């Protein structure tokens, strides 16, 4: 099982990720707080997520498949364990809260649909995405 991502790892990539988020969203860097909701607080749309991933892939020389955040968030749970008919299961919610530990508890609502997961994304979510992609790239040699 993969080692948990540390705060030091997040801190090391956050400045670059924050700059890319600010650039992609056209917002002030100061507004890109680690736990800001990209959609609710910073006005991100789906195209902005594609933009951010595209920029991160280039900057960090990693490959980030679309849907990778949800896949990472699911962890070791199977798809059926994580969601049923598009709604996240109890076990799935526990896993999601664990993966998105930077998201304030009050932002999680029950039930949550899989398609609503992006509403929880924060800049730190993208830091984690980069770190896991870097690890995979390193592991692949």
């Amino acid at each position, binding site marked *: 099982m993969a080692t948990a991502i540390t705060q030091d790892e997040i801190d090391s990539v956050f400045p670059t990720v924050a700059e890319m988020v600010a*650039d992609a969203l*056209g917002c002030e860097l100061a507004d890109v707080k680690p736990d800001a909701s990209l959609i609710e607080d910073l006005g991100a*749309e789906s*195209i*902005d997520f*594609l*933009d951010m991933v*595209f920029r991160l892939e*280039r900057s960090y020389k990693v*490959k980030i*498949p*679309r*849907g990778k955040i949800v896949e990472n968030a699911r962890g070791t749970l199977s798809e059926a364990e994580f969601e049923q008919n598009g709604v996240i299961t109890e076990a799935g919610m526990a896993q999601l809260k664990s993966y998105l530990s930077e998201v304030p508890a009050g932002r999680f609502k029950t039930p949550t649909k899989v398609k609503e997961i992006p509403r929880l994304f924060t800049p730190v979510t993208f830091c984690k995405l980069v770190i896991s992609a870097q690890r995979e790239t390193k592991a692949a040699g």
Partner: protein
Amino acid sequence: MPLSTPQLAAEAAPAHAFAAFSFVDRIDEFEPSRRARGRFLVPAALAAFPACLVAEAVGQLAAWVAMDAVDFRGRPVAALAGETRFVAPVAPGSMLELAADIESCDDDAVSYAGWAAVDGRRVIELHDCFGPLLPTAEFDAPEALRDRLALLRGEGAPPARFRGIDALVATPAGGERGQSRRATLAVPASAPFFADHFPRRPVFPATLLLDAGIRLALELASELPAWPAGTPLRLVSMTRVKVRSFTPPGQRLDLTVSLQESARDGASIALAVSADEKSVATARVEIRAGAEENRR
């Protein structure tokens, strides 16, 4: 400035697919999922061929590689373009040499770079382009696209079928002299290019929208105090293009250009396009003052 010859468009505009907004005549080299080299003869009868349509031609070549890579299940749509460098203008009658190099492509998206040249000299370069793939059948007949690619890779399509596009004139809507300009652009409810872009779902081409934005940016640049009135201005590059949504026929678009930076020899201008107060597209336009070519 008209995009090309309105009178030609009015007389005999082709209203069918693969003519009114198609800018690849032939594909000479094709490495599946990786690269293509092709060409497009800019009809000599046109009054002009805007730089945005040159970029469109490169994008269309990349789209052929992408659609083939996913067996025509998906077709890319314009979304992001990191940087487009406009090196030199293209005159009607020129043979455009087109190149598309695919960086990655799957059922979700394609990323690519590309360029166009005339007589071996680069006229445009595209870097860091990215387009999501959407279900082809929503826009076009997959079999028609498949047959078209076979034609392009074989004998090639008959050249000079593009007959120009009616002038799309933005109406001034205010602004602050030397700082910003606003205009509205009425997208026509019908036009020949909608039959080609796309046959099953007409969408106003993002390149035409950006072309209107560039012209507005040049107007703003022309009134900057950094250079004497009448100084020739050149479009150097367009960066950070982000197209957020489709524009349907008949839509009213609000264009805003605002000065970001100005130096002795150039200016950086932000472009924002919206419809019903919702952002449609954004970009940054770099303009240089002076008559020399952009060649590096």
